């Protein structure tokens, strides 16, 4: 593909220059970072935004009447606008900031699960969820008598849509909480269809978009879902900040999760009243610097554009699947039709941990383990896999390095 003739193509060498860390070497070898699905690296723009805030414009926000506080409040709150635009939300007040995706799902499990769902109702998840989208619902089940249902995954690693629909049939499911993209299989779930079916059975839908939003344009109005969560550090932003988007009327019906400063309207010992959404859900001093960093990350991603990012990733994934298929004794977990740049695999005769360590000694960073998805591992009779995942800075040459590295590992254990 000629970059000059394709306006949406992504100039990966230029992008790599934006990420200072990619110049590092590991044991004298250039860093090949294929662990972006766990957490992405940070571009210069994010680093600079955070440094600039700390060096020139920082104070606690909301209700500070002085220049530093007013300006910092503006900077932090502009992130809410940026997130609303990124997700095509109706309204900036639908954007709630949390500590990460896990915090967002726990907020929902608490405020919607305990505050809106009724005993006897059910929550439906899928068989390919991250622990962060399993355990909060399990805790809700055990403490509040909400049933937990699990829609099975096919051998190809896709959601079993017939079974999914059957689990909604009795009308007891109040909320479907399901991944938009698996962090193990790379599978992208059919979000529009899920919403249509769930709504037809009277259930609301939350997507765990922790992985999806890194790879695909997310339009919550087009999806017509009810809640959508993601986490800043995977979208090239800082740690310490996550997002819960919810339809405004639903957020308004939900009681608060944590109590404290900033989330109140008034406090007396007898009774406190809550601030309007989204502040009702944001207790205490927010992640101010992280919000400022996240704004820079969103601006950076928007400048590159989701079309270019998705095209780059599709090309990387295709190349990787082809190269890995050529390695004897290597098995890829998941063959979904619609998939993103996350590939799990195992090697005959070599444990995933040994694979990861031996790749590391060649400068190649992949993850190995259950990827916080034990039930999915058990579904495939596995304890662990190795996983390579791609970001906007990943190159085809790095995928070749992975494949060559794996061939060496296989020979080493032969």
């Amino acid at each position, binding site marked *: 593909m000629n970059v000059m003739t394709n306006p949406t193509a992504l100039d990966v060498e230029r992008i790599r220059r934006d990420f200072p860390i990619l110049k590092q070497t590991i044991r004298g070898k250039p860093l090949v970072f294929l662990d972006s699905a766990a957490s992405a690296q940070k571009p210069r723009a994010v680093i600079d935004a955070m440094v600039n805030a700390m060096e020139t414009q920082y104070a606690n926000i909301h*209700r500070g009447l002085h220049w530093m506080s*007013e300006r910092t409040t*503006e900077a932090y709150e502009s992130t809410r606008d940026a997130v609303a635009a990124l997700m095509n939300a109706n309204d900036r007040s639908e954007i709630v900031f949390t500590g990460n995706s896990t915090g967002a799902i726990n907020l929902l499990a608490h405020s919607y699960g305990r505050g809106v769902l009724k005993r006897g109702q059910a929550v439906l998840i899928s068989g390919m969820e991250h622990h962060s989208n399993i355990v909060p619902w399990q805790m809700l089940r055990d403490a509040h008598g909400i049933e937990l249902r699990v829609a099975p995954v096919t051998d190809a690693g896709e959601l079993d849509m017939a079974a999914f629909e059957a689990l909604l049939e009795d009308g007891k499911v109040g909320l479907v909480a399901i991944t938009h993209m698996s962090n193990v299989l790379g599978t992208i779930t059919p979000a529009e269809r899920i919403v249509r079916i769930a709504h037809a059975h009277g259930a609301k839908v939350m997507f765990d978009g922790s992985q999806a939003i890194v790879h695909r344009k997310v339009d919550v109005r087009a999806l017509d879902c009810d809640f959508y969560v993601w986490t800043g550090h995977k979208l090239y932003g800082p740690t310490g900040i996550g997002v819960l988007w919810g339809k405004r009327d639903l957020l308004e019906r939900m009681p608060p999760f944590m109590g404290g400063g900033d989330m109140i*309207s008034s406090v007396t010992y007898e009774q406190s009243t809550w601030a309007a959404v989204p502040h009702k859900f944001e207790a205490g001093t927010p992640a101010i610097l992280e919000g400022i960093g996240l704004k820079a990350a969103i601006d950076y991603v928007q400048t590159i554009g989701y079309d270019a990012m998705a095209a780059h990733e599709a090309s990387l994934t295709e190349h990787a699947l082809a190269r890995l298929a050529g390695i004897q004794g290597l098995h890829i977990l998941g063959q979904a039709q619609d998939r993103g740049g996350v590939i799990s695999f195992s090697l005959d005769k070599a444990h995933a941990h040994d694979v990861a360590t031996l790749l590391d000694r060649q400068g190649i960073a992949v993850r190995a383990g259950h990827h916080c998805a034990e039930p999915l591992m058990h579904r495939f009779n596995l304890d662990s896999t190795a996983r390579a995942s791609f970001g906007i800075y990943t190159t085809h040459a790095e995928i070749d390095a992975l494949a060559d590295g794996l061939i060496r590992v296989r020979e080493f254990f032969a």
Partner: protein
Amino acid sequence: MTQTDSFDDLRDLYQEVILDHGRRPRHAQRLDAFDSTAKGDNPMCGDRVQVWVKYDADTIGRVGFEARGCAISVASADLMAETVQGRSQTDARALFAAFREMARTGICPTCNAAVADALERLAPLSGVHEYPSRVKCATLPWHALIAALDGTKEASSE
């Protein structure tokens, strides 16, 4: 105020008219005879205001208020009372829209001839746009007024 010159740095926001209306509001009184009233409350900063309205045929005849708050909010309530008296409800609403815009941004691109003269009277308050958290001080009395015009009992800061 005798040392006018030495207070230049303070006076660009707290102009004489604000200090004056903040200190000696002309309309700070409960109306004995009124057609409508509403309260406004900004729990974030403790500002509280109540507004009374008496109509005179199609226009707002008189406005009175009681306010507890900073100089900006009291002055804003007083200037509001002064400027809306004798205007139609429609004009008062248009004036609020224009004023709110001015308080938020410092300028008022949408301001048209119909409210231009009244807005000039309110212009000293435009400096609050530099302090987004104090914009509410200036607009709270207006929220209460609009609530009274709407027949709602309570308004809260945006």
